């Protein structure tokens, strides 16, 4: 397998991390980080969406985040948990355990101080960033990053299953542009990942399948 395109791989890692931050509750620290770093992703948002999502005031963004993703009257409009979408509307279904397994296999876990489930969209995206980092560190040597390769593909395939529905719900219920534009870009990006993984990291379904058989 060829070495990853380092520059592109770093960008990919950072895009994952950035999206992870965007879909995480914007407390002061997260909000400040987004505000400072978002512009660097202008190219990404222009290519995959309508351009940079306009960042509102922190209190407005927090209100929007809670009402779209955390709690609302009756039900939460756009739930960011993979299990909710994959396992019949419940949290901690099979998908959740699968994702936890992927992280464990690649030597990762969720920090104990984070009161969140591993299959939360922001964690999935951050996990992708962590897996890309492994691949970069191992210089794309497939014998050393089989688990990371397989995990990345599985996370991609999982998100691809529900990102359309998620983005649609965000668009339907959003009262401002930030999450609408972000989820639209996320959707397009996820659908392109197959291609990006293959070309940037040299990771694809075929070689991942081979590693699984060898194991």
């Amino acid at each position, binding site marked *: 397998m060829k070495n990853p395109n380092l*520059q*592109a791989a*770093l*960008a*990919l890692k950072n*895009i994952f991390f*950035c999206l992870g*931050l965007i879909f995480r*509750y914007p*407390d002061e*620290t997260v909000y400040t*980080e987004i505000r400072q*770093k978002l*512009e*660097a*992703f202008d*190219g990404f948002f*222009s*290519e*995959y969406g309508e351009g940079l999502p306009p960042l509102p005031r922190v*209190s407005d963004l*927090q*209100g929007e985040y*809670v009402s779209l993703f*955390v*709690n*609302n*009257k*009756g*039900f*939460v409009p756009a739930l960011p*948990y993979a299990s909710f979408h994959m396992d*019949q*509307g*419940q*949290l*901690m*279904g099979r998908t959740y*355990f699968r994702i*936890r397994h992927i*992280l464990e296999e690649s*030597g990762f*876990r*969720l*920090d104990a101080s984070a*009161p*969140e*489930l591993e299959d939360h969209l922001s*964690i999935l995206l*951050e*996990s992708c*960033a962590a897996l890309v980092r492994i691949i970069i560190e191992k210089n794309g040597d497939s014998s050393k990053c089989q688990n990371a390769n397989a995990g990345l593909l599985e996370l991609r395939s999982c998100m691809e299953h529900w990102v359309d529905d998620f983005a649609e719900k965000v668009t339907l219920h959003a009262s401002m542009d930030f999450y609408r534009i972000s989820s639209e870009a996320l959707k*397009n*990006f996820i*659908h*392109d990942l197959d*291609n*990006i993984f293959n*070309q*940037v990291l040299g990771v694809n379904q075929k070689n991942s399948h081979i590693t699984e058989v060898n194991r």
Partner: protein
Amino acid sequence: MIGNKMTRRKFLGISAASAAGVAFAPALTRVVRASEKTNDYSILPKGKREFIASNCDMCVNKCGIICEVVEGKLHKINPNPKNIKSRGMLCAKGNAGAALPYSPDRLKTPLLRTGKRGEGKWKEISWDEAFKLVAKNLADLKEKYQNRSCVAFASTEGFQEEFYYYLVNSFGSMNTVRHTTLCLSSNIQGWSSVFGVFPDADLQHAEYVIMLGSDRAQALITPDSVDFQRFKPKGQKLIVLDPRFTETAAKADRWYPVKPRTDQAFVLALINVIISENLYDHAFVETYTYGFEELKNLVVEYTPEWAQAKCEIPADEIRQIAREFAYHAPRSVIYPGRRSAFYPNEVYIRQTFAILAAICGCWDTIGAVVPKSSVKLNMHNVIFPFFMLSQPRVDKQAVGLVKDVVPDSVACPMVGTGLPVDSCAFLSEKDGSWGSFREAVLQDNPYPVRGFFCFKQNPVQSVPNVQKTLTMFEKMEFICVIEQQMSDTAWYADLVLPHSTYLESWDPVHNLGGIEPIVEFRQPVIKPLFDTKTMFEIAGGIIHEMVKIPSLWDDIEPADFEAFKKDILEGVLDKPIVEYIQHQVLEYPGAFEELLKEGFYTPDGGKARYGSTRNPDFRFKTKTGKIELFNERYKEFGLFPLPKYCEPSALPGPDQYRFLVGRTAWNTHTSTQNNPYLWEIQKENTIWINTAEAKKLGISQGDEVRVKSKVSEQTIKAYVTEKIRPDCVFYVNGWGRQSPWMSQIYKRGASESEILEDVLDTISGSMCMHETFVTITKI
């Protein structure tokens, strides 16, 4: 939909720019190397399968459960076959409890309102911030109004409620309001007026059972719902009086669609027959009761013929039932039931039932009604400070205020209009009366109430006349709700604190004894999914912040403040809750281990304790110490001491129907409808209309109809059926929620609390559920 496929060049094009060079703050990383810290995912080792005993909390019954947990995930809740109260059953709700912790809609972290109240704009805050905020608001309100009772505390029963009262008593408000006046306080009051206590029915051994307005097949109560069918002995008879053909009516040997509010006439006639035909238990009446002659004089006029004209049950059948009841006594049960008040004379209706049991000696013996048993627990004897700035309850002083909610049309002549005496004197004072409490707060009489706390109660859905509740909320300067889900009440709060589910927490030991004594507790079967806490932890957190604010303690002695910190904080709330639980059962060796293993404990194998009060020297908790057929205390308070018949209000107009309430076996009030496994059973409510009436109104099955009462109107689909009296209509509680988003679950069917008028029972202050009249029109 297919996303736009990008080429490598395009991705590389964008990545070549700035994205690759970004360095994010390392502290923001949450997905970390596993080796960096010890792995602490789960209370259970990987792949392990465990069965953990605890108790259900999907309704009031607290049935025994055995939770099957696989790899830290709750798979299935099974009934505990050994539990002597729930007798090895678990209903639909209890089973569906396994979905509760995994509900994506549950509250996950403390939320602070940032927009207008009810607008739905929130921010997440930490527990530390939340505790500080609560303490500060309490201090501010106390300073502003110089009265600790300016903050009201609402709650409902539950194993953690005692810790809510740690908070209440640490602040020193007298204004607490519990669920009982929306629940069974009138029933408790009526039976207690005779026996001094509220008993249970020994349905397992009874030979003859009369149930009036209790739907035990659907409104499930353990062990009664089990016993009345599972152990039905050969020849046992069940007589059911209900305006609806309920699932219980379907099990009855005889069902009478009694005219609403005339059950009392039926029971008075039974008493008349039993006395006039000399069928009562002479020895029992002689030994244990007080006021038989007065009762005898009262019921002379209440003949079966008189009753037939009232309740539409044939006189000869009333005679026959009276004779059968007396024949099977003491194994005859007039069922006490467990429900809210229906009518303004509800206490007298219940007093009548109790008197029938008393004169037939159907008391405290096998197959009769029997006082509840309990297990003596080791109490935590904490003494809360006496605060100078605590004024008495707002509704205690509000005599006469409630005139408005006891209209002349429903007032009983013998008790006058309005609550003639201290409105909450008759049950525990801390229960209060929701109706009179709300009136007093709305009128600022005798003083303003400006803070509101709510623990697992949902008054916006459960207290009749929603508009009044919302108007009351508008008066509040601070509203804090402690809940598991974003209830309609939480939606109007300023601060919402997420409570852990019953499957994630330790709960203290409580008596649940019926005829057999039993105590239960809870232990966590899974780790909390989110940043939630229990009331024990919340009370501790808030009180710790309160003690940092000197102004909150300036109306007690400094020595009392020191004692408070030592006893309440160090002594109880700072310790692990497990120590609290162990202390409770200290006197019973092995009891704590038994609780861990079985979820319950019973000292003597749970054997029924019959006859403890069947001793001529026993003093009942009544004024005379006897079973009072004539209530001396009522006489003292200027109330009629005997259950004199009270004529029901007539239908206000020819096009009016009496609105009835009721339950299903798969939902608890308003709290479970969005559980997908229960929603699946019933997706919306429908209004029951008698076939002949529907024809008159031109309404067919499934038609949309408008239901209109004095206070609101609702839209709902018609269920045209033979199963209801022509002069009544019915729909079940829990539907017709208002929600900003349309979904499958919300805005379906019609709301009960919106349509109900707020009419009060004249003695217990309970809300009366069957005193609303509606018109029905096809849309």
